[in-house]
């Protein structure tokens, strides 16, 4: 954790350049998709980040795996409803978070499957207040996509005391 915090402080301009270059590099690896595609590394990233973003809202116990799968799919659906130019930006962000060098430099964490919740919380917290606006906005994108698509689902309304719209008109 200490190491990852220190590495953040060092990012600065070099980090911004790397970030931009990483995006370009990533785009060359794969043909620019017309539509966002959630590939396996992207799925791994979400599977690691979603439980930390949602915290105690994600159920424990036997339902957890299915709830996480649903949450991942809800994020994917939210992304593919965005304009293509924005989908491409999200694809680039997912790409940067998948590639080992950029993930280590920007998020300071090991492969997603090995990262602890504490490491992920530290990375989210550091992006949240980062002096690079690009990383702050990446945090907001993850925040809004994960949290928004969770509370969009009627199954999650009772827990917050939201009765939902008038049934007669919502059918």
């Amino acid at each position, binding site marked *: 954790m200490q190491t990852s915090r220190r590495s953040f402080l060092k990012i600065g301009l070099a980090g911004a350049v790397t970030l931009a270059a990483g995006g370009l590099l990533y785009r060359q690896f794969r043909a620019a998709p017309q539509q966002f595609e959630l590939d396996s590394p992207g799925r791994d990233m979400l599977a690691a980040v979603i439980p930390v973003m949602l915290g105690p809202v994600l159920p424990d116990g036997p339902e957890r795996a299915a709830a996480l799968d649903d949450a991942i799919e809800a994020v994917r659906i939210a992304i593919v409803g965005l304009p*293509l130019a924005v989908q491409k930006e999200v694809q680039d962000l997912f790409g940067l978070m998948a590639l080992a060098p950029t993930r280590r430099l920007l998020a300071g964490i090991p492969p997603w499957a090995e990262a602890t919740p504490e490491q992920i919380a530290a990375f989210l917290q550091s992006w949240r207040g980062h002096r690079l606006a690009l990383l702050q906005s990446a945090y*907001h994108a993850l925040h809004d996509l994960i949290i928004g698509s969770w*509370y969009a689902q009627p199954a999650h309304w009772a827990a*917050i*005391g939201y009765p939902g719209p008038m049934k007669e*008109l*919502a059918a």
Partner: protein
Amino acid sequence: MSAVPDPIQAGLAAGWKVIDAATLDGHRTLEADVVVIGSGAGGGVTAEILALSGLKVLIVEEGALRSSKDFKMREAEAYPALYQESAARKTRDKSINILQGKAVGGSTTVNWTSSFRTPPATLAFWQREFALKDYSPEALAPWFAMMEQRLHIEDWPTPPNENNELLRKGAAKLNIPVAAIRRNVKGCWNLGYCGMGCPTNAKQSMLVTTIPSALQHGATLLTHARAERFVWQGDRADSLQCSALSADGLAPSGSRITLRARHFVVAGGAINSPALLLRSRAPDPHSLLGRRTFLHPTLISAGIFEQAVDGFSGAPQTIYSDHFLETQAIDGPVGFKLEVPPMHPVLLSTTMAGFGQLHADTMRQFSHLQGMLALLRDGFHADSRGGRVHLRSDGSPELDYVMSKPMWEGAQRALLTMAEIQFAAGALKVAPVHEQARHYSSWAEAQKEIAALPMKPLQTRVASAHVMGGCTMSGDERSGVVAGDGRYRGLSNVSVHDGSLFPTSIGANPQLSIYGMTARLASQLAQQLTGKPAAQPRAA
């Protein structure tokens, strides 16, 4: 199926001329007397007046034709279907989230029905600084009155919901005057879901008023068609090139549509209207096009109350205060209008800061949260010149808007004021929406800590539901691309009729300003094109 009559489905069954461009194969050419680009507040009003005046009108809309049968009050469906960029349109640096409509009816299909005439102080500023001599409250009054009658804009007799009542109560404790908001509704059920499309057709949006009226008078509506660029011939727009979109509205389907007309009215709303003219390389000798785009940048504060607030239920906006607009010079320290937002799970959860346990704790208070908004009045202070619309490499628009120092100072005052009012109303805690704010337990604590919060993009949450300007209207060609009569300068057959005309922000929810001003512009245009007085729209 609900028993609510659906005027759109009835009209389609009766033979309205509606073409869904997503269903077209190959290229088409269509002709009309006037092509109206956009079906929101400006386009809807214009299309009706021109069609009633006997002109053959064609309305082009990028979004889909949806109606009450589709409005199921669920954010997951409403935002992608009815809003630009799934209600997540953002400024270039991603720091301001913009709510703007995208469907037939434009933003009027999803707005919260708040109706204000343009404040006299705003018009006085326009007359003084932008040489708009015809824009006095007296000259505009008959046009506002006409549109108020047309759209049933009236006092709202029902008591405010608790979310609004707490604004009234807190302000009263502090001797801050408030007033009631007039609404464009007829037979409103007081449900609270205006932002997801009115399921009962009570809201008198363009979707259920002017657009059906225009269609009944022979207009054609072309949906899922994106206006790409004008083709010029000398100083005339010879045609408008449009791309048909796929049914999901995200990508061009490959079919192109050429629209020819005597006259073209640009009414795509701020951001999209200047973008069309920028893509078309319209004359812009003073480099003004796209500049002076305003947002009413909006700060948000959440109060947690002991009692249930249920801010999702009931008319969303019924109480406001202009105290902090009226107590200082219009071009002095930036003032703000106070209102409240409807509280729905997606809008609220994405707005509230933090993640994990902290965010979950906030959401558990969902039904006890009261939301308050402060809309900053931008465009009047010498250092509040708004943002600029750019084109991305694919031609889509993006707004570069940077909050200047006087705007951030206004933002900090706004967060302080809202917290003070919420505590005065009895809040147990107040959470200003800021990444570094905490949930404060007293006004003394909040006052001290809010004053120390850094006012910075992406740290202070800023939103906008009112995009204005970018095709500035001015009596002086050096300060506006459009003249006071709505005609685009340097072009003989192009007008702009929407909120992009405004040379500053309005200082109030802008729908009635757009209705009244474009009603006058459209009536003048109808008279010029037909040689006869324009027809007057009347409520059914």
